[in-house]
């Protein structure tokens, strides 16, 4: 598929990486020459220098022949203008990044007039992801499949906890619900485990289970679970605002800390029920006097990723039951290793995933098309959801007999709305949807790719 991306920033670049890896013809437009050069050198893509919202540049990038145009520059208005222009030139589908909530609300109203296929708002996605994490604070991360009926949750193995020292084939006896450990992060290394694998304290594990079993799972694994009632948000970004609004709607007390006075005034106006503090949030005395330690959850959403890491560590030390840090750079993640109560949210990955899901749904050419993809373990592994079509090989054969590639696991099968957490005796049939968990880097475009060659 021919895809043009306007804007080579964080999101634009990451999209180009992933889309070109999935085999699409990608053209990137940006007005910064040095950034384009870097992309040109590292990726197998074409670049065009210029303003994405100008007709000339779009013609040069032959947007008219493209099937998809993605506008991911930093300005909403430019993104919208880009998309209108691309549409006029004959591009079939357009996706725009729109951050300003004032515009998001009118998008439903304008979508047809602007010819937009989809709008993405990284802030809204992250706010929602954090909100979901706070609903199940004992899990580090939640991703849903099969229209929300299956969850892939990340949790950490605590010392002396129910999971410490348990071999995976004995897991059912403890959990009493069907679940499958599909991925383990041990000391920074990602392992797709076999049945004989023994869990150890400090491991982070990814587990698939039916959504309705989650509450029972928490109980049976005697994971300490608390309802989040008081949340402290550090940083006054748009994500913080949207998250706070969502939390307040669920009757959760919210305290927001920001050092920017203008933002504070805005937040206080937009969120009358929140307590907004204008202060230096790195002042430990202040954090103590505002009783951060008593918070059920501490969310670090400042503009500086390093601060987010430090703040979440600090909050955890002071006694906050749960911490969430917004971090995009994978290189920083080892710093949070072994911290069981700190979740990480990457706005960049969330935004990209939303777009990738859309692209894959468009791309019907492959047999057994991919429905969703979630990066797990901070992008070091992936969970992919496929629809099983008739041309998939080895249908009806027990999974234990399948010649699958190494480090790959079938985590879940949905058949006629029924959820099967599979063991070796289960099998795939036509019209099922399956979730595959694999280490990132194994390129899987269609379901047949999971089988070892020859």
């Amino acid at each position, binding site marked *: 598929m021919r895809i043009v991306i306007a804007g080579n920033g964080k999101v634009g670049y990451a999209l180009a990486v992933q889309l070109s890896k999935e085999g699409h013809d990608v053209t990137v437009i940006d007005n910064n020459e040095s950034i384009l050069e870097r992309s040109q050198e590292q990726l197998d893509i074409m670049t065009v220098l210029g303003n994405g919202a100008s007709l000339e540049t779009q013609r040069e990038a032959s947007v008219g022949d493209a099937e998809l145009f993605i506008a991911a520059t930093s300005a909403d208005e430019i993104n919208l203008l880009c998309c209108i222009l691309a549409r006029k030139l004959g591009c079939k589908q357009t996706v725009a990044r729109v951050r300003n909530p004032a515009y998001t609300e009118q998008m439903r109203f304008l979508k047809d007039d602007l010819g937009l296929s989809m709008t993405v708002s990284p802030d809204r996605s992250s706010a929602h992801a954090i909100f979901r994490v706070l609903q199940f604070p004992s899990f580090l991360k939640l991703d849903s499949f099969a229209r929300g009926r299956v969850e892939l949750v990340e949790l950490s193995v605590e010392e002396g906890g129910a999971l410490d020292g348990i071999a995976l084939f004995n897991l059912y006896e403890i959990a009493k619900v069907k679940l499958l450990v599909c991925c383990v992060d041990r000391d920074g290394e990602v392992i797709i485990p076999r049945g004989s694998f023994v869990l150890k304290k400090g491991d982070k594990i990814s587990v698939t289970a039916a959504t309705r079993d989650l509450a029972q799972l928490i109980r049976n694994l005697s994971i300490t679970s608390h309802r989040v009632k008081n949340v402290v948000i550090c940083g006054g970004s748009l994500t913080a605002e949207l998250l706070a609004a969502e939390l307040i709607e669920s009757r959760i007390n919210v305290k927001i800390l920001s050092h920017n006075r203008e933002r*504070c*005034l805005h937040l*206080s106006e937009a969120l009358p029920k929140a*307590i907004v*503090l204008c*202060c230096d949030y790195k002042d430990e005395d202040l954090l103590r006097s505002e009783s951060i330690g008593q918070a059920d959850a501490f969310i670090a959403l400042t503009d500086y990723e390093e601060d987010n890491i430090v703040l979440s560590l600090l909050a955890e030390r002071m006694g906050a039951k749960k911490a969430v840090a917004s971090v995009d750079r994978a290189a920083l993640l080892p710093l949070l290793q072994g911290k069981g109560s700190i979740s990480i949210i990457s706005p960049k990955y969330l935004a990209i995933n939303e777009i990738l899901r859309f692209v894959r749904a468009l791309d019907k050419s492959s047999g057994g098309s991919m429905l969703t993809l979630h990066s797990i373990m901070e992008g070091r592994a992936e969970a992919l959801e496929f629809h099983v079509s008739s041309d998939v090989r080895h249908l009806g054969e027990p999974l234990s007999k399948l010649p699958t590639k190494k480090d790959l696991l079938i985590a879940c099968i949905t058949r006629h709305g029924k959820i099967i957490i599979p063991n070796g005796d289960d099998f795939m049939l036509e019209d099922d949807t399956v979730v595959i968990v694999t280490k990132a880097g194994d390129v899987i475009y269609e379901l047949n790719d999971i089988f070892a060659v020859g």
Partner: protein
Amino acid sequence: MNIRAIFHYIGHILRIEALLFLPSIGIAVFRRETSSAYAFLIAFVVTLVAGQCLLFAKPHDRSIHAKESFVIVTLGWIALSIFGCLPFIISGYIPSFVDALFETISGFTTTGSTILTDVEALPYSLLFWRSFTHWIGGMGVLVFMLAIVPQSKGSGDSLHIMRAESPGPQVGKLVPKLRFTARILYAIYLVLTVTEVIMLCAGGMSLFDSLIHSFGSAGTGGFSNMNLSVGHYNNPYFDIVIGVFMMLFGVNFTIYYRILCGNFKDVWKDEELRLYLGIMLGSSLLISLNIMPLFDNNFATAFRHGFFQVSTIMTTTGYSSTDFNLWPEFSRMMLLGLMIVGASAGSTGGGMKVVRVLMLGKSIRGTLQRLLHPNSVKVMRMNGQRVEDGVMHSVYSFLVCYIGVAAVSMLIVSLDNFDTTTTVSAVISCLNNVGPGLNAVGPMENFSSLSALSKLVLSLDMLLGRLEIFPIIMLFSPGLWKRI
């Protein structure tokens, strides 16, 4: 300071006032009341001539700004009152200038306090004039002028006039053109008044009495042509109709405009309206329970009188369906408190205004939060809109000035050596444009026993209350008269 433009505007006001004498002249002629007919005719001619004289001096520059607006509004109201009391003096029914001035200011400011011991002795034309001043003063003479007098093209300065005259901390337009805003307000006002007249007539009240009581409740004034006020009829239907209409006239008129535009959601969510209706209902219930023993423990009758009195006092009208001065102390204190709260901003009522009480309450909450969290930032919101700090400061200053004016007035009135309740309630009643007070100035009494000095002070209080203090204080501020 553009003095010529100020005179020009006041000339307009006087010309309008001269025209407002005409209905009374008609009634005097129709009822063959010779002395008052002559009185009105003389007043008409004098006012018209005075107005024309002021208009002869054409200003070179008709543009007016904030400070001119304050002067126009204040001097305009004073001129209006002085010329308005002419018929009372000339006809000889109120020979003393101070008394006549008190009565006229009480009329224009929609207070409804009277110095007359026997209202029913007055001829129809004077009774009509008294109540007509309520109706004109309720929505504002200058707003009326804005509605009919063509403005200098393109100048937005007249909004200052509307701001200075209309009650409430924030005054805005309904439609882009000020003239049409003024017209819409008057149209709503007129329609509501006519509806009330029709409903009272339908209940069997004579047309003249209906007009008097409709003017009185529309302007939230309170002049009646009966010594016993509405209690004279002792008719539940009249109590309910007048009670409900007073309540309606105490609502911000922009609410009606929004209803006309079909914007019901905003209306339902309007914080001031909710608080206004809430206070009214809550106080009615409390007072009804308190006074039940006086009405043979009949809740329906108690509520009828309780609601009527709450409605009349809170909207600062000042009618009475029964002598509430005889009620238990709790109810009397409730009514005294409601006088201070007053009606909604942008209505015809007086008092502090519900919206200011609401803002002050919210600001207390903000202060508490700031004490708990010294770094916290709290933006005050009203109906989802941010309230700017400047508006808030003006509310604080208003409160301080209000208390100061009340304190000084009480001190002066206390020279008459009445009991504390009388002194305090007389000042609160006049400053909030209510009408009756308690004890010696209660609903069945009047203000005639006060000294001339007290009457003048109370007249000034009525003007201060109607124009919300600042325009009048401004007149005495040296800054206003400086050239630069």
